C-alpha cells in the first residue's frame, strides 16, 4: 500500500468522524429526499387524476370560459418542480457547500 492511499483512507476516516460531516449528510439527504418525494408525489397525483378523475381537470376555469382547470394545473406541475430545483440548488450552493468546505479545511 502506497503512502498516498494510506493518507487518503485516513482523511476519509477523519471526515467521517467529524460531527459536521454527519450534519451535512443528514441535512442534505433530508432535503433531497423530501423534494424528490414532493415532485414525484405531485406528478403521480396529477397522473392519477388524469387516469381516474379526468372530469376534475376538464372543468372550466369560470362561468362561460373555455380554458379548463387542467391547463394551469399542468403548467404548475412544471413550474413548481422547477422552483423546487431552484430551492435545492440555492441551499446546496450556500449551506452544504460551506459545510463541505469547512470539512476539507479542517483536514489541513
Amino acid at each position, binding site marked *: 500500500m502506497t503512502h498516498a492511499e494510506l493518507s487518503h483512507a485516513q482523511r476519509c476516516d477523519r*471526515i467521517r468522524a467529524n460531527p459536521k460531516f454527519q450534519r451535512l449528510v443528514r441535512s442534505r439527504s433530508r432535503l433531497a429526499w423530501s423534494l424528490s418525494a414532493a415532485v414525484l408525489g405531485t406528478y403521480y397525483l396529477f397522473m392519477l387524476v388524469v387516469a381516474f378523475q379526468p372530469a376534475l381537470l376538464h372543468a372550466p376555469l369560470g362561468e362561460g370560459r373555455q380554458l379548463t382547470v*387542467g391547463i394551469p394545473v399542468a403548467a404548475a406541475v412544471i413550474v413548481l418542480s422547477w422552483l423546487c430545483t431552484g430551492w435545492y440548488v440555492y441551499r446546496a450552493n450556500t449551506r452544504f457547500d460551506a459545510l*463541505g468546505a469547512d470539512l476539507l479545511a479542517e483536514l489541513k
Partner: protein
Amino acid sequence: MMRLRTLGTACLALAPLGVLAAPFVAEKQPVNLHAIAMFFVFVMGTLAITWWAARQTKSTSDFYTAGGGISGFQNGLAIAGDYMSAATLLGLSSLVFAKGYDGFVYTVAFFVGWPIITFLMAERLRNLGRYTFADIVSYRLDQTQIRTFAAFGSLTVVCCYLVVQMVGAGQLIKLLFGLDYTTAVIVVGVLMLVYVIFGGMIATTWVQIIKAVLLLAGGTTLALLALAEFGFSLETLASRAVASHAIGWSIMGPGSMLADPINAASLSLGLVFGIAGLPHILMRFFTVPNAREARKSVFYATGFIGFFFLVVMVLGYSAIVIVGTDPQFFVDGNVKGALIGGGNMVAMHLAKAVGGNLFLGFLSAVAFATILAVVSGLALAGASAISHDLYATVLKKGTASQKEEMRVTRIATVGLGLVAIGLGILFEKQNVAFLVGLTFGIAASTNFPVLIMAMYWRNLTTRGALAGGFAGLATALVLVILSPAVWVSVLGHAQAIYPYDHPALFSMPLAFLVIVVVSRLDRSARAERERAAFDDQFVRAQTGLGAAAASSH
C-alpha cells in the same frame, strides 16, 4: 377495432420521441433555398468553432469533458440542447394539435425526471465520475466486468437512439430542404463525425449551446407571432381552438390516450427515470469544474426545458386554429384530410402561416441543427464508452497512453458514424418507433438502477449489479419485442402479447429486485471488500474529496 385502437395509441404514444421515426415516408419537397442558406451559415459557424476547439483539445480530458471547463450556465444550455431534440418541437406540438390536452400530460412526463436528477444525482455524478457513467458504477466494483457491462448498456442505448435520430433526420430533411433521403443521412453523419473527431466535447458543447439558443429563440418568436393572432389572450386562443377542432371541447381535458392506467404508469416511469440513464445526458455532468456548477447547470437546463415545453403547448393549441382551418396546409385543400408532409409538420406549417417563407426556412435550419447537436452528443458518449471503458480500462488495464486512447476514440467515432449512416439508410422505410421504447426502456431498467444503487446502496456487489442489469436489459428487450410497436407493426401479428408500449413498469422494478436479492446473497470476499469501500466513496460523493479536478486552459 380493438386492435386498431391499440395500434393507434401505440404510434401516438411514441410519437414525440419517435416523431421523426413515425411510420410515414415523407414526400420529397421542392428545394428550399432559404432553409439551405440559413443552415449553411450554421454549419460554417459551427465548423469554425470546431477548428478552434480542435486547437484546444490536447488531452483525453479535453476530448471527453472539455477539460471540465464549461460553466454551469453554458452547460445548462448544452444539456437543454442535448435533450430537446427536433422531436420535442415537432412531435409534441403535433400531439397537442391532434389530441389537445393529452399532449400536455405527455409533455409533463418528459419534464419530471429533471428535478429528480438535480436532487439525487447531479452532485454525486460530478464528484464520483470522470469521463463516463461507468466510472461511477465501477468505482468500488469489479473494473473489468462492471465496466464491460456499463459500456455495453451505453452502446445499446446510444445505437438505438442514433438510428431513431438518423431516420428522423433523413425524413425531416427530405421534407424541409427537398434533399434526397440518403444524401440527408450522409450529410448529418459526416458533419457529426467532423464535429466529434476534431472538436471533441468542446465543439459538441458549443454546437449544443448554439442550437439551444436558436431553438429557444425560434420557438419563442413563433409562439409570440401565433399569440398575436389571438390578441395575446389565452382565453380567446382556447375558445377558437375548441371551435376549430374536430373533437371540440374534448381538447381541453384528459382524453383517450392515457386512459389505460397501466400503460400511462409504464410510460411515465420509463420517461421519468429513463432520462437519468441516457449516457449522453449523464456525460454532460463531467464537463463542469465541480459539483456546485453541476447543480447550477441542471437548474438552468430544467428552466430552459420547462419554458420551452410550455412554449410548445402554445404552438400546438395555436396551430389547431391557424393551421387546422387553412386549406393550403392540407392535401388537396381538404381540412378534414391529411396534413401536407405528414402529421408531424404542424410547427413548420405554423411558422409559414405566421412568419412566411423566410421564417419557415429559419425554423427548418434550426430543426436540422437540432438533430446534428443530438447525434454529436450521442456519438461522443458512444465513442467514450468504447475507448475509455472498453479499450483503456478493460483491455489495457489503464496502461494506454492518452495518445493511444484518443486514437481509439476517433476510430470508434468513425465506426459509430458509419453504423449510424448505414442503419439510417437501411431503416428508411421501417417504422422505428420501437427503438424509442427500447432506448428509454433500457436506460430506465439497466443503466439507471445500477447507477443509482452504486451511488446510494452500500450493499451493492458486482454480482448483484450484473445480474440486475442483465435482468432489466433482457426484460425490457423481450417486452418491447412483444409490444404492439414490434409484434404488430413490424412483425405483422394480429394481437400484441404485451399490450403496453413501454416496458419500464415491469422491467425497472425487476432490475431493482434482482440487484437487491443477488447482492444480499453474495457472501464472497470480493463482496465484503466492495461493501467496505462504500465508506470512502460516500465521503467523496458528499464532499468532493479527491474528485477529478478541471484542467487549466
